């Protein structure tokens, strides 16, 4: 379905609104293909269409919500009735209210590429097979490719409200991923590689394969080092994962509800001077770029930390209103939930030096190439974190032996202040934050 058809459905729902009632309808539709190959054969080929609607009702200062996984007309009415009924049981809150047009023009982004629609199923299968072969051939120690996938999505969505919001759009995206197994002696290690784009021509099979091979083979022979305090260099992929968590603490919702470690710190120096953090979904380079947020407001560039100084928090309409400010265009959601607040395309301002030069300046350290259990090991409220890690030892400015079964621990607050330098290698990843090499001092590395 195209965005116009979806907007028509959203408008129809909004048209059912009664006096004194605010209604928001979010409608989405997606068409997906996923090919998985294994040992030269297609293991599975999935094709699917999915759609859904989420309806929010605000009446008498109370809010209710309901969603459904179909757009059948009778279901739309049922869902609205359910949302209305749910609103009766919510607590009243004077700050409830839908977004209202705020005059900010949406950025002109090119998120939809017809070339994807013309790419045949055969060609998708061939690309997945080519990826599998490339991983297999990448190194004699590669003993298996657990999965090699090609996938794509053509998505469209629309939002309409009784307060005058009308927003709709569509986008295309595709990806390649490979999970590899490398073995030497009786030791096995795993790796992964990926490539993402708006159309298949921008996918890079060789790069995805090379990453999968390198990640699996580089840890062969790794050992557990003793516990000590070291300087670490986070690889861009690892930095991006940490940024995602730091971004969560910048949410106006977390601040209002006393769950942000940065509440009351606006204007303070919360990070080293080399840290400038920006959330900018209008940046066309970002894979998560978007012209409208989850409430249909135009996205915008938000400067969060400027040379170490905390400048602002992110808001949706509710948190903006309650904080005495306005939405920053940062409502995030799917059709099955009410809008939250979050980062959409977060990045650090890159520094001047490439990773090799950063490493050359470190006498004793660790290049952290992978972290695991980050979601369970970070408490975004207290800031404590401890995560499983692996990587390479840095000795006298050079990369040395691989190490594994370590954890690195600190607090998010200290980590930001302990940033020594940001690398020049900014790279956008298929997540809501960009990667860049990051040097952090005084991190506890636990091992044997």
């Amino acid at each position, binding site marked *: 379905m195209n965005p116009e058809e979806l907007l028509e459905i959203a408008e129809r729902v909004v048209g059912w609104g009664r006096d004194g009632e605010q209604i928001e309808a979010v409608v989405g539709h997606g068409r997906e293909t996923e090919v998985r190959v294994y040992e030269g054969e297609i293991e599975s080929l999935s094709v699917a269409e999915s759609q859904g609607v989420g309806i929010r009702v605000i009446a008498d200062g109370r809010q209710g919500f309901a969603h459904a996984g179909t757009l059948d007309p009778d279901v739309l009415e049922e869902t609205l009735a359910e949302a209305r009924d749910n609103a009766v049981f919510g607590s009243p809150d004077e700050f409830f209210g839908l977004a209202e047009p705020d005059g900010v023009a949406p950025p002109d982004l090119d998120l939809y590429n017809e070339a994807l629609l013309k790419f045949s199923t055969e060609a998708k299968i061939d690309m997945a097979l080519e990826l599998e072969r490339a991983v297999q051939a990448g190194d004699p120690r590669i003993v298996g490719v657990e999965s090699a996938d090609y996938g794509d999505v053509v998505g469209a969505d629309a939002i309409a409200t009784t307060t005058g919001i009308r927003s709709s759009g569509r986008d295309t995206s595709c990806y390649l991923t490979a999970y590899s197994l490398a073995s030497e002696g009786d030791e096995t290690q*795993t790796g992964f590689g990926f490539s993402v784009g708006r159309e298949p021509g921008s996918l890079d099979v060789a790069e995805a394969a090379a990453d999968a091979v390198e990640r699996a083979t580089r840890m062969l022979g790794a050992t557990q080092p003793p516990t000590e305090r070291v300087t670490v260099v986070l690889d861009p992929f690892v930095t991006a994962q940490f940024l995602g968590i730091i971004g969560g603490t910048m949410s106006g919702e977390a601040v209002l509800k006393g769950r942000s470690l940065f509440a009351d710190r606006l204007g303070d120096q919360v990070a080293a001077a080399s840290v400038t953090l920006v959330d900018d979904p209008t940046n066309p380079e970002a894979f998560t770029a978007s012209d409208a947020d989850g409430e249909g407001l135009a996205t915008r560039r938000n400067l969060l930390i400027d040379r170490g100084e905390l400048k602002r928090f992110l808001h949706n309409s509710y948190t903006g209103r309650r904080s005495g400010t306005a939405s920053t265009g940062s409502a995030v959601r799917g059709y099955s939930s009410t809008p939250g607040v979050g980062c959409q395309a977060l990045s650090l301002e890159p520094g001047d030096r490439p990773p090799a030069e950063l490493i050359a300046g470190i006498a004793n350290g660790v290049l952290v190439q992978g972290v695991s259990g980050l979601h369970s090991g970070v408490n975004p409220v207290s800031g404590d974190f401890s995560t499983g890690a692996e990587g390479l030892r840095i000795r006298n400015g050079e990369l040395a032996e691989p190490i594994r079964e370590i954890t690195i621990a600190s607090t998010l607050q200290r980590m930001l202040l302990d940033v020594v330098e940001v690398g020049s290698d900014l790279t956008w990843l298929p997540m809501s934050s960009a990667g860049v090499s990051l040097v952090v001092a005084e991190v506890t590395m636990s091992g044997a």
Partner: protein
Amino acid sequence: MIDESVVVGTLSEALRTGGEFAEVFVEDRRSSSALLDDGKVEELTSGRTRGAGIRVVVGETTGFAHTSDLSENGLAKAARAAAAAARGGGGGHRVAALDRVDAPAPNEIEVFPETVAKGTKVELLGRADEAARAAGSAISQVSARYADGRRRILVANSDGLLAGDDQVRTRFAVSCVAVGDTGMQTGFESVGRPIGFELFDEYEVDALARTAANRALTKLAAQPAPSGSMPVVIGPGGGGVLFHEACGHGLEADLVAKQASVFRNRVGEQVAHPEVTLIDDGTMAREWGAYAIDDEGRPAQRNVLIEKGVLTDYMWDLLRARKEGRESSGNGRRQSYQHLPMVRMTNTYLANGTEDPQDIIAATDRGVYVAHLGGGQVNTATGDFVFGMSEAYLIVNGEIGPPIREGNLIGNGPDVLAGIEALGNDFAMGSPGTCGKDGQGVPVGDGTPTLRVASMTIGGTAA
């Protein structure tokens, strides 16, 4: 949910272009939840999804399509899409006459959640908020969530299988923030069972809220977690997730077949202390991971994975079992009709031991006592795992000492199994969990008695 004749027609359509095996999975799911946060009932949410997933198998290839259109035409269209995705079969396969076999439910449902007034559900939230705030003046924020779901499924395949299930789950969770001189700390507690609103005859939400609040308050006084390797004692029910992650995943036949498991080719070997028995049991009445049939129509089973320290078997789904010429173990599950099934756990637990838990702690000179583990993850190919400790204490001279702040626990699955040196006689199931694999989440349960592992690495910040 849909007519048997429509099911047969859909399966025939799916096999028309040469498929060897076809399956229709129909799902109708209703859910409702209510969230209280910041002292207010923010919203009630209702959800409804229904649809069908159809798969067709030819040789090594599975074609899959799903649709939310359950009309005869909608299903036929999805059947053709799945068939087109799995082409090139020899043909000649027919749909066997459907034979409806329903497995017994793990337990009865007394009060279906949709029969309970919304106001009654909301009232639970207010009680939890009040109880948590009354637990201490340092409690600065409380959020409580009530959620229920009813999932009706129907599975039919070209082998003639026809089965259905009506799965109800109810859950309640409380999360608190406490503020003190050392900053903010959090505490969490949840309960969930595959039953209806009678869950609250068994559990008082006030008590759950106090537990969550006390966890946060306790941590205000906590010291930084130590770092390095040391003995770890895990409390009853608090560490089942460790064995789910560190051992269970490696015993899933799909990962084993792809050489992505450290337990490959080890059936029959002694992998743990002779007192260690690991079981996955989808039939456990009233436990979070239980069901009557799995998402391929196979009745749930009790599967012994490790018996007296010896690896006895893996867990199987339909396709993986067919290849090996054996039966599925009832572990084929999927998140929804939009997903392909794969091998998943149900309720995975380490069976009871014989020692007095107090003796296990007393015999530990210095180490860490983990009352409650948080989430974690494992690399099944290497066995390496990571877990967050959400409630933990130092053990000093054989006694549980001061609380420690959050940190991670890391180790290796086979090493931990081999390193279990004491098992208590106080078995308990843990909190309801959601297990993620390949992007799909399914409800699972776990359990353990008190146990001691000779050495694990604690990733704290203290020297």
